[in-house]
């Protein structure tokens, strides 16, 4: 082979390699675009992450409220709320008073400018038990009122007992260093005591007694009306969609917008084979009682809805979506590759169109009948909704293929919800069960996609609610 021949051969060889490799094409899997999209549009991911944290946090708080009852009930409230007719032993009440005094630090001024601490010290120097004095607990004690434990007084009287009935008996003067048990303390009548004590002490007693009365009354808390309810719920649902679109047989002028694909005339719903599927929703809400029968509610809810598409698998082929063009000069179609056909193909395939949504139901709930444990309620909500995924299938405008085109999905939507339910109160919780219906008011797709899809759900809502105290 001559040099020239060799060079010619080399050039031809390189040309052959270049030409053949340039002809070669490969179709990447969906995850590649997903990865690119997620990298480029991080704001959306952050939003989803933020909302997820919010929902999880809300559900955790709701769960905690429902499962763990409130523990912080003031001891004093237990007494003051008791009805007048309730009989209580004086020893019980005084012991409770003592515990309350121990918990509530009494060494604080009653009013500005008054040094209450000194008065209390005077009081306790006379009547307090030695161990209390050592521990500097400035409180009255069961030790200085020695009454038979079987003697009973009403709660109301008991509250004023120290002020009004104190003349019964008072403890004897106690040696401050004495370690004698309480039972061994001798008592004397108050008349004797008055004789023995100076006039100043009596005045000090009255001051303290009046102060105690006042203090006790201050602890009386009015019964609160609890207006807030917390609710969590879950609903198994059956999901489907309402599909509408341009009927090209009637609107022939739009044919010009379908430059490539074959057109099937007729309504889109007649050319697809879809079936309903089961989904679910769960969430939580806070209710505020506006009136006795009407409540306002607001919350967060996660929805998973889907339906089945019966289609066919095929080799990769072009899929064209013709877009509604409002201005005339913008691009009017999107072309991609798909391996899913609507009418015929290599093998039958059942696809699922899944929608993950986050919504914030806001609405009203009304009690229809029932007053006590069993009630019948109805509720209606409007739900601003954010679509978390946009990888569902779209029908091409020639009805021939299904393809994925995330840019044609509407991110924000509005749903309407209606429900009726029976509720039953048991153990501080209210259980509810009833049918619900949810309808997506705007199309799943943006306006430039010629077909419209409105999702709908029928479900059974199971919920638990609890009054927030």
């Amino acid at each position: 082979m001559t040099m020239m021949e060799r060079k010619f051969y080399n050039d031809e060889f390189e040309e052959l390699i270049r030409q053949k490799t340039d002809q070669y094409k490969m179709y990447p899997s969906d995850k590649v675009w997903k990865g690119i999209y997620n990298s480029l549009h991080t704001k959306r991911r952050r939003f989803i992450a933020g909302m997820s944290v919010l929902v999880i946090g809300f559900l955790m708080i709701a769960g905690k409220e429902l499962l763990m009852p409130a523990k912080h009930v003031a001891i004093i409230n237990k007494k003051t709320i008791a009805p007048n007719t309730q009989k209580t032993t004086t020893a019980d009440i005084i012991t409770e008073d003592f515990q309350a005094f121990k918990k509530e630090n009494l060494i604080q001024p009653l009013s500005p400018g008054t040094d209450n601490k000194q008065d209390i010290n005077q009081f306790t120097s006379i009547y307090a038990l030695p161990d209390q004095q050592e521990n500097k607990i400035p409180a009255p004690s069961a030790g200085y009122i020695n009454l038979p434990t079987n003697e009973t007084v009403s709660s109301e009287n008991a509250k004023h007992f120290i002020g009004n009935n104190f003349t019964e008996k008072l403890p004897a003067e106690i040696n401050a260093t004495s370690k004698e048990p309480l039972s061994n303390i001798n008592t004397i009548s108050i008349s004797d005591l008055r004789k023995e004590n100076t006039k100043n002490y009596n005045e000090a007693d009255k001051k303290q007694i009046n102060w105690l009365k006042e203090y006790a009354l201050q602890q009386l808390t009015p019964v609160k009306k609890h207006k807030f309810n917390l609710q969590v719920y879950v609903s198994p649902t059956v999901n489907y969609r309402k599909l509408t679109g341009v009927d090209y047989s009637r609107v022939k002028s739009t044919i010009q917008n379908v430059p490539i694909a074959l057109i099937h005339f007729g309504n889109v719903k007649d050319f697809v084979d879809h079936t309903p599927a089961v989904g679910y929703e769960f969430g939580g809400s806070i209710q505020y009682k506006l009136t006795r029968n009407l409540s306002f509610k607001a919350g967060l809810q996660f929805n998973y809805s889907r339906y089945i598409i019966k289609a066919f698998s095929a080799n990769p082929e072009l899929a064209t979506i013709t877009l509604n063009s409002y201005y005339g000069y913008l691009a009017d179609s999107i072309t991609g590759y798909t391996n899913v056909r609507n009418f015929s193909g290599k093998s039958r395939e059942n696809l699922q169109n899944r929608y993950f949504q986050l919504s914030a139901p806001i609405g009203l709930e009304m009690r229809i009948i029932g007053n006590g444990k069993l009630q019948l309620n109805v509720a209606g909500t409007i739900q601003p909704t954010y679509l978390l995924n946009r990888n569902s299938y779209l029908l091409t405008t020639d009805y021939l293929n299904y393809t994925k085109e995330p840019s044609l999905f509407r991110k924000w939507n509005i749903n309407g919800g209606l429900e009726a339910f029976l509720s039953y109160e048991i153990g501080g919780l209210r259980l509810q069960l009833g049918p619900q219906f949810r309808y997506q008011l705007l199309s799943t797709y943006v306006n430039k996609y010629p077909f419209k899809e409105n999702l709908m759900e029928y479900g059974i809502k199971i919920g638990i609610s609890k009054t927030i105290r």
Partner: protein
Amino acid sequence: MTEDAILQGCLKNQAAAQRELYNRYSPKMLAVCYRFAHNREDAEDMLQEGFIKVFLQIHTFQNKGAFEGWIRRIIVHTCINNLKKNKRFNESVDILQASSLQIREESVPSIVQAKQIVDCIRILPIGYRTVLNLYAIEGYSHKEIADMLDIEESTSRSQYTRAKQMLEDILIRKNILQKPKEKIELMASIR
């Protein structure tokens, strides 16, 4: 969508335009990646990384050359960087060892198609394959290849010569090509 509309949309970070650009060029670019990569998964990783760079750097594209060529250059550089990063390029077979490399007979199909040529290229040791890809197919000069791969220009030349020889041998063994003396007529029939 016109190329200009796609470009404008991508400049505004519009997902629809980005998707359109991706749909249009990803099949060809994945084939490019596949010639450099160890397997399809690696090729898809390279493609993803490359397209992210394309979208992030799209504002640097000046309408002086072909858009596809610009994208292709970014993809090729991404592949090379990826090979360097994963040290696969450094593991390339030594020239002397490579000349005695056994070719797996069953790995080469018998009908001449683009895929067969690509498969034959992928049989080559990665060092040979990279230089061959860059010089014969992507059109880089030996100097550019030397800069990209951090090797001597002479090394690039010798690697290419041997790579081409090896590929030719493979193609001849598989009856895709005939020996040089019988040469061009067959090659013409292949096309």
